[in-house]
């Protein structure tokens, strides 16, 4: 399904990918690589939240699933001595397994109150990990989490292998989410977004589909969390807070829902901005709060939506406006 991929787009994406792969060869400043890694983590979560958000569900507890993934990796690699490469898939699986019953229960409430339950869930994960010093480290968290094997490659001195690992994971995440969004399953999600009632009437199991999207979002949050644990080597309840969940929400609010470019752009912009202005702690919170308000008021369709509307307006044609329908139009 290649509709919508014009040659300029293909060239742009190819150039971008080439640039990303070549970056460590061109840039020696470790800080830049660090920021890119942060962007990667954020893109992974943003993109999976986007897929869930297409069905109209916003989860305010993604930090909770990230924490579960991070904790799984931390415990497996540090306490049990397992290699990171084994811990990673399990760190994706555990949050997904927990997401299934949690999502089931959350969906019992009418969709819009679903987010309150997800919010509370994120807090509970945080609370549980904070309360039990053994084995979760309590408020102190877990430090000295081992790096991926080979340890000689993934030292704290050299960020390059971490960069490539993050790049690989991010590209896989984006790739999978993109394929899914263009597949028939993705079309089911878009259909639900257009009209839940009609979706059910054509045979779509709406609650079941939403649950699958919720579980998938949790899975990728787990992957991001797992990488976080291996890279930062330290996790604690002070990291995976409600503010962190909202942080990820801002990526998709500012980025927009129209296409997968939305969360990617949102994550990139909103990771760079705090770094560029050296905003930390409460000042970052203030900035994000204001950005959220301004974005909702002034640009509710997000950057991606605004860009799409801009593109559409530039096309002067007597035909009726074409909807954005990835891969679902008659022409190929």
């Amino acid at each position, binding site marked *: 399904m290649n509709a919508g991929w014009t040659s300029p787009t293909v060239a742009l994406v190819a150039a971008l990918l080439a640039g990303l792969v070549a970056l460590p060869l061109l840039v020696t400043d470790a800080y830049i690589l660090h920021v890119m890694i942060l962007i990667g983590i954020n893109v992974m979560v943003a993109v999976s939240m986007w897929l869930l958000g297409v069905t109209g569900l916003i989860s305010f507890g993604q930090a909770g699933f990230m924490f579960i993934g991070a904790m799984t990796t931390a415990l497996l690699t540090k306490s049990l001595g397992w290699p990171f490469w084994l811990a990673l898939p399990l760190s994706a699986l555990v949050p997904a397994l927990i997401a299934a019953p949690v999502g089931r229960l959350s969906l019992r409430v009418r969709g819009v109150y679903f987010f309150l339950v997800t919010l509370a869930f994120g807090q509970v994960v945080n609370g549980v990990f904070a309360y039990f010093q053994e084995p979760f480290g309590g408020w102190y968290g877990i430090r000295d989490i081992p790096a991926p094997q080979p340890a000689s490659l993934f030292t704290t001195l050299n960020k390059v292998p971490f960069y490539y690992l993050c790049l690989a994971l991010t590209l896989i995440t984006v790739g*999978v989410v993109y*394929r*899914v969004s263009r*597949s*028939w*399953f993705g*079309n*089911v999600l*878009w*259909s639900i977004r*257009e*009209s839940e*009632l*009609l979706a*059910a*009437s*054509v*045979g*779509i*199991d*709406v609650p079941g589909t939403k649950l699958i999207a919720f579980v998938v979002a949790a899975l990728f949050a787990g992957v991001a969390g797992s990488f976080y644990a291996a890279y930062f080597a330290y996790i604690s309840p002070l990291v995976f807070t409600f503010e962190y969940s909202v942080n990820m929400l801002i990526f998709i609010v500012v980025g927009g829902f129209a296409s997968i470019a939305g969360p990617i752009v949102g994550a990139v912009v909103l990771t760079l901005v705090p770094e560029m202005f050296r905003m930390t702690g409460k000042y970052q919170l203030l900035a994000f709060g204001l950005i959220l308000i301004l974005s909702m008021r002034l640009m509710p369709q997000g950057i991606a939506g605004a860009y799409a509307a801009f593109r559409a307006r530039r096309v002067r044609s007597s*035909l*009726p*406006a*074409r*909807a*954005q*329908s990835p891969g*679902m*139009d*008659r022409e190929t």
Partner: protein
Amino acid sequence: MALLEASGLTHRFGGLVAVNDVTLSVNAGEIRGLIGPNGAGKTTLFNLLTGVLRPNEGRVRFEEADITGEPTHRLVRRGIVRTYQLSQLFAGFTVFRNVLSALHVHARAGFWAGLLETPATRRQNDAQRERALEIIRFVGLGGREDDIAGSLSHGHKRLLQIAVGLAPSPRLLLLDEPVAGLLHEDVDRMMALVQSLRDVQGITIVLVEHNMQAVMRVCQHITVLQFGAVIADGSPAAIAADPKVIEAYLGVFENDAA
């Protein structure tokens, strides 16, 4: 052979009895009309038959199987499809994508094949695209495949609703006021389409309508509801002569009798 049987269906909203001990039986190949004054409970009855509501009492059987309380999406897989009074459409999609989306749900390929795109899925996708075009042409929307659903005229939206309803290959189609708000020519076109759905596709049809001419012309068998209960059940001629029905409509009938 009775395709759809409802027995003793009752549904209450708080203190109000919306559907009161309704029993009816629809045979395969029928075009059944369901009429009654406003508030008679026709849409509620539809909701009970299509899994939108659970009845407080009574049962529904489809092709000998008990389907009481089954959710809408599962009934679709059994072959029961329903359209809505207010046009429910995927407004932002094109006409083509509306119908294709409805077809996709019945893809046998499954989740993983969708991701991987094997030659088998590609063949199935092409077959579905063909079928979507067929359906669109059948309802009379040929040439409008790329129009955005939300931008269609009211009459065309109604046709699209039918097209989307046909995608799951239903054996029973429940149409809720298919000609409401349509102009005269569009009414004729819609009723001709409804007739051909039964004649050409062999679909059994139950339709709720207020437009008496349309109902009398197309339905062989009519059920009349008032205050949630069945007050008459028979041929159009019998219904037109039934004093209870005439009283229920208070003269509206006389104006519309063919």
